[in-house]
Each structure stands twice: as structure tokens, then as C-alpha cells.
């Protein structure tokens, strides 16, 4: 003990909205947590349940799926799939005994740099409170 727990968070970000929003947060010098490991995907609808489960398996303590707001999808309706898939996967995690709060879906547009910083900071803090995932899975 003594070493403070630093959450590892994998964030899947859609190329067209959230990734640009994260970029703009950096350009505008709005601080966001370094705990976030970004993975750029072409659409939040591309994020399969397998990808989320692998992120957890690879040691993520939390997973964010981030994409365009409904109606703004670059591919018209990719995020229509995301919005159904992620709540189901959250439920499924909870049925397996994993805290569903470790997975979150958030819409962040390219112009929402402050929102990007705010939601990532809040999520990292939430995961910090929950503690490491390994504690849950290996015990």
C-alpha cells in the first residue's frame, strides 16, 4: 500500500466528433486527465462488445465509449446501434458481477472541448472511487 491507485481508462472515440473534441480541448489548453487512453474508431457504432470486453481483460479499470450526438452521426445512424448496445452490455456486466458504472456511453461533439474535459475528469474520478477492476475480477 501507500501507492495511490491511478485508474486506467480506455476511451473509444469516434473520429468525427469526440476525437476532434478531444483535440480541441488540447489546443485550447483545457486540462483533461492523463488516465485516458484514447482509441480512435471511425464510429461509436464500430465499438463491438468484444472490444469493450477485451479492454477490460487487458487491464482497463473503466471504458468510455464516446461518439456524435444522435442526429449528428457522420454515417447517419451508426450511433443508433451504440445507444442500444451499450446499455445492454452494461446490464450484462452487472449480471456477471462487474460494476456497470465501469462502462459509460457519452456523446461529445467536435465543438464540445470543455465537455470532453469535464466528462473524462468525472469518469476518472468515479473509477478512482470504485478501485481497480482486478480487485473485483480476481478476488
Amino acid at each position, binding site marked *: 500500500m501507500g501507492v495511490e491507485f491511478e485508474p486506467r481508462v480506455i476511451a473509444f472515440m469516434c473520429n468525427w466528433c469526440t476525437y476532434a473534441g478531444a483535440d480541441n480541448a488540447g489546443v485550447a489548453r483545457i486540462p483533461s486527465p492523463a488516465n485516458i487512453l484514447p482509441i480512435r474508431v471511425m464510429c461509436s457504432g464500430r465499438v463491438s462488445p468484444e472490444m469493450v*470486453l*477485451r479492454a477490460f481483460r487487458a487491464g482497463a479499470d473503466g471504458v468510455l465509449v464516446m461518439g456524435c450526438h444522435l442526429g449528428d452521426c457522420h454515417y447517419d445512424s451508426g450511433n443508433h446501434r451504440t445507444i442500444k448496445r*451499450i446499455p*445492454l452490455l452494461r*446490464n450484462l456486466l452487472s*449480471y*456477471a458481477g*462487474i460494476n456497470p458504472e465501469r462502462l459509460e456511453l457519452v456523446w461529445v461533439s467536435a465543438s464540445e472541448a470543455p465537455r470532453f474535459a469535464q466528462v473524462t475528469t468525472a469518469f476518472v474520478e468515479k473509477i478512482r472511487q470504485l478501485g481497480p477492476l482486478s480487485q473485483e475480477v480476481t478476488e
Partner: protein
Amino acid sequence: MIEELRRIVEERLSALDGVVALRRTPEGVAPFVFRKGDDLSELEIAPKYPLMTVVSRLHKAFPDIRLGVVARGCDERAYIEMAKRNQIDPARLSIIGFACTAEEAQECYCATPYPQQLLVGTPPPPGPVNPIVAEYDALPLAERRAFWKRHFSRCIKCYGCRNICPECFCEACAMEDAAWVEPGLLAPPFPVFHLIRAMHMASRCIACRECEHACPAHIPLTVLYDLMRRDMETLVGYLPGTDISAPPPLSVKLDQAPLRMSGVGE
């Protein structure tokens, strides 16, 4: 009841290339395509077997074949989900439906132990909800985890659950992809292997219980799938195996399968 089924099959055979059903031989009971002139006294209805998988294979292998099938409620539900995903051609299939017994409905925790196209038998009362499912929401996370660890640790990764499933027909299976499931681990890593399957079952599982019957390790898989069925109904009002005209909800736009809950993604 079985005499009446045999009579209907004989009638239908005059207009069909064959009828898929179970047949008793000295070696046991197995799926069979009865054709005109075959001995229908060999036709059986038990033990339960997912015959729609056989129908699907025949439809794909013989593009002109016109079939009948002797079907239970779960067979018809399997057909509904398979037809809308292009695995069975409804125009080339005639369903000869019969009702399960009350004991079977109990054993399967079956809510609808009879097909919509019911020709033989009377609908028995629905079976109860699996008691583990009924109590599940009250279980704390740690107990859920302990429950599944205990069961999943017995998994020998035989893929029996997937192979028997009428709704598992993908040509490339995520559960065999080394990117998602590391090869060479027994039992497969908790809980990835089983959650992938549960997630893929979400809009498809028609509660036939075949996976659980097939499982040599007696893993209560349908507890997980029943919960997912319930959630699909809550999320978009979709109960797999009910409505052949309802599109698969996870692959269509929100206007075709609107969310029934709010607050997602905000």
C-alpha cells in the same frame, strides 16, 4: 396426438418434397426428412431437438426444395428469428405445429409452450419463470460474480452451446477469434467468452434451452440469456421469436426500433 400429427404429415407430403421431423430407428431418435411413401409410424416428437437448423441447411443446399417441419413452440420461435435473418425461406416452409406437455413446459421454464400455428394438441399452462432469474436482481454484485465463477470455471470450451443453438449461424464466430478469446486457456478467461455469446444472443435467444441441455458442464446459461431477453423487451419492446415482421432491433435505426428508456448517453 402423435397419430394426428402423422396423419397431417402424410396429407402435407402430397404437396411437399419432404417433412423434417424426428424418426425412431433401432439406434435411437434422430432428425429425418420424411418423403412420400416413408413409414410414418417411425415419426416421433421426443426428445426435443432444434429442427430448424436442419431446415436451414436444407434450404441453403437445395434452393428449390419445399419442406414441412413438425414444430414445437420453440422451433417456431427459432424459425421466426432465422427467417428474418435470411436463414430460412418462409415461402418454402410449412409449419406443422404441436403443443408441448405441461411437464415439458415446466421443465423448460417455457412461457409459450406452443406455436402460433398450432395444429395438434391443446396449449398447456405456461411454465414458471426460472427461480434464479426471478430472484436475480436482488443478488449483490459479489454474489453474482461468485455464482458465475463457480459455473464458468467448469467450462471445457466445447462450443456445444453455440453448435446446438438455432440462432448461431455466423460464418465467422467471435468466440473462435483469437483477437477476442485467447486460445489455449481452460476454462476460458472469465467472463469474456460467455459474455460475448450472451451479448450476441441478446436479440436472438428464443429460450429453447438447447444450449443448457447440450452443456456437458451443466452451466445454467439460460439464466444469463433469460435476463437478456427481459432487457431487450424493456429496452426496445422486442421479444425474440414473436413477430416475424419486426426487424432485428440492434441492426436498425431508432425510428424502426425506438428506445423505451431515457437518459442513455446524456
